């Protein structure tokens, strides 16, 4: 898969990209709360604009936390119920294939990708949970083991338009058979397909 990609420093973001991925990591050391400081970084203005224009925006792990803190996605991500960091390959089920990052999957398909986080317990009030379900905005959930105590096993959600997706799983770590699998590669394949 050939995608021209660029690492962009947070205060050098320009308005020239077709899609943006907020990767995992500990932005600003997770001080205060995961993703909250990065949500106020200069780059997020550009990301917000791209989201509004319907361009693909993906938040992975800390990137998901940033999208939530930026209110580009609803709900909140709380500390794992085990109160411990968890790094593990998980079974996932793809529930919504009408998004920029899952359109190359089949609905209901089972895939495997790893997670690695401390704060990935998606939490939402009943009303929001219900809305997410009715609007088909749950992108993936854990069908078997729920490693973090997340509501309804939710692992990934999208906005209404499906161009903004946040996921706790790491597709980039599941993009090479040597490293354990290639299901994640199709997340990026979906992005290409969506943009075509």
């Amino acid at each position, binding site marked *: 898969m050939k995608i021209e990609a660029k690492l962009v420093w947070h205060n050098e973001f320009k308005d020239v990209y077709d899609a943006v991925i907020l990767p995992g990591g500990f932005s*600003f050391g997770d001080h205060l709360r995961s993703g909250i400081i990065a949500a106020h970084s200069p780059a997020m203005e550009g990301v917000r604009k791209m989201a509004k224009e319907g361009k693909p925006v993906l938040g992975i792990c800390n990137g998901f936390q940033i999208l939530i803190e930026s209110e580009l996605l609803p709900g909140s991500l709380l500390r794992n119920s085990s109160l411990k*960091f968890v790094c*593990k390959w998980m079974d996932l089920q793809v529930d919504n294939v009408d998004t920029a990052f899952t359109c190359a999957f089949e609905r209901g398909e089972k895939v495997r990708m790893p997670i690695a986080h401390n704060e990935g317990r998606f939490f939402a009030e009943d009303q929001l949970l219900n809305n997410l379900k009715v609007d088909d905005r749950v992108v993936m959930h854990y069908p078997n083991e729920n490693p973090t105590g997340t509501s309804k096993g939710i692992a990934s959600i999208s906005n209404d338009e499906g161009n903004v997706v946040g996921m706790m799983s790491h597709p980039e770590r599941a993009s090479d058979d040597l490293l354990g699998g290639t299901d994640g590669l199709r997340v990026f394949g979906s992005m290409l397909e969506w943009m075509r």
Partner: protein
Amino acid sequence: MITSTINCSLTPDEIQIIRQRLGREPNELEWALIDAEWSEHCSYKSSKAIISQLPSSGDHVLVGPGYDSGVIDIGDGLILTAHIESHNHPSAVDPYGGAATGIGGVVRDILCMGTRPIALLDSLKFGDITKSDHSKWLLKNVVRGIADYGNCIGVPTVAGEIEFDECYERNCLVDVVCVGLGRKDELLLAQATKPGDSIFLIGGSTGRDGIQGATFASRVLAADSDRERSAVQIPDPFTKKMIIEATLEANRAGVMRGCKDLGGGGLATGLSEIADKGETGVDVHLEMIPLREPDMNAIEIMISESQERMLLVAKTGSERELEAIMAKYGVSSSRIGKVTSTRMLTILRAGKSIAQLPTDFLANAPIIQRIAREPKVNPPPGKVMRHENLRQIVISLLSSPTIASKEWVYRQFDHEVGIRTVVKPGQGDAAVLRLPNQKFVAIKSDANSRICDLDPYIGAASVLAECCRNITAVGAKAIALLDHCQFGNPNDEEVFWSFSMAVKGIADLARALHLPCVGGKVSFYNEDEEKHQAIKSSPVITVIGTVEKPDHVTTLNFKHNQETIIAIGKTKPEVHGSEYYCHLGLYGGTPPTLDFQLEGQTQNAVLECIRNGYATACHDCANGGLAVTLAEMAIAGRIGATVDLTRSPMESLGDDELLFSESNSRFILTTRRRDDVLRTFQSFNIPAAAIGVVGGESLNITLQHDKFEFDLSKLHTAYTRSLEMILEPWRK
């Protein structure tokens, strides 16, 4: 006069040497500088003469011991760096902060060679967690400290080992290894070679935390050590992450001449070492050093071990560029001094010199010749009742904390960040990471204090042998080792004898295996002051190997039905110091023998099988013997096996010894090419035999007088749930 404000640990002899060599009475600041720099922790004054016998050169060695980390040339213009650090004393007082800052320190050792840290390993020792809540507390917080720090800086913790023994109840050991990857043409050394260059202090400010950490580490822990929390530094992984990226970018930009981590002994040590190694001098201006607390005196500033600080030597004329790179990452940088040709460390305040000492004098403490005395021979252990329930012991050993799965620990470590980790924790005998040149690096740390306690020479050599077997089992050729010798008080002649013998054991086997030692560390004073009880001899060995091709990467789990199981190496009646005897409460005796030549040949033969594509799984046979080794392979593969252990190569022995003996130089391998494998071992003259086949839902073991069937799910539960049940009994 030696001041009372500073707790000096210099000996009367050293004080006399100092006065003689300087020809004058040092002032208070100068005494403090010498005290920090000549501490055991910084100077290795007790151990230098002993550790110099370790072989340190070889085809792949670019930089051996003596720098912040060893440097290995892996071809294609790439280098690996490796270093081991311990944070034993700090972790005993503040397990979370102590363990975290231990990682911070070893990461800087890798970074200051101009290489990117790509992997961490941890080797931990605690008291008996089945009995001690204190040890549980230490374990939980050490693990959390490593996780919070390593995960945040984006360096995967890929492997390690944990041992539990009552001797560590009041002296836990926390070792961390870091491996770095870089380009040969970007290698940096901790040297200030050119007078006129500027010296920058980057990263965190200098505070009172970690004051006299080096001297704290060079003493025995006392009952009131809890009050020494101020000697433990405060971790700040986010600042560290910025320092890593900023330093690597500055290195790529070519603005740096040298780089030095500030660890034990703080600025005093860092500055005198870069000047001594570069054969130059340094002028440092105290008022240029950013302070966390404004009222710090000169001594506190110079010996503070505040974390997240590095010294960078900027090439003349590159200062602005360096400052700009640091500013981009929000890393504060201060130009604190200059490289001179005086070969003196000169400390200035308001332009006036307030201390001046020769750098070679400071950086090279006089070596102490210590006395070694062989202790009395170990009494043999008691007799085993031959009617033990061996079946039940297999289950008990699998769930004993030292053997049981460490999943509870490694799930908390991000072991995949950086997307290099090919063999992950629990999957193989060593971690395997991919490299940019289509090759792979294999890394593992090992220890076994019980056998080192019985015989430090054979024990330490056996630890190295086991570590090499682990590297071999994943399909790698060992290319370098790191050693870390952890002992009690070196003033105790028996302790010093054990230390000397352990180093000799490592050195002799390393020479036989043509394996260079590229770095290491010595940590003394691991002793309980109240009970005057030293820890068991605890050398920790790390071995680094390379895998040539992706097909060679081998994991330990049983894979497919009908594959043949091959036992390699002879099982002898060697159970002294084993997990089995420990379980029965039997201590003492003589450890398993080790034939250096046979060990090397066995590894070569296994590697040949793997490289020829014969092996579908491979596992070193060590703690818990054949029983535990086979069970681990079945548990990992979620597939059973049927084996007849009487067919394995062995001397005359009892069924318990056949199951649990910890003889050296043994592996279990599975294959679809039985005859090819057996022929290979025959050609190497290594005993090997087919003992059974993979398949089914249970592990069936035939012995001379007995036959066991283990339900796979029972084995799985015993092995994987044990640590969690001890540490978090409230979960189910």
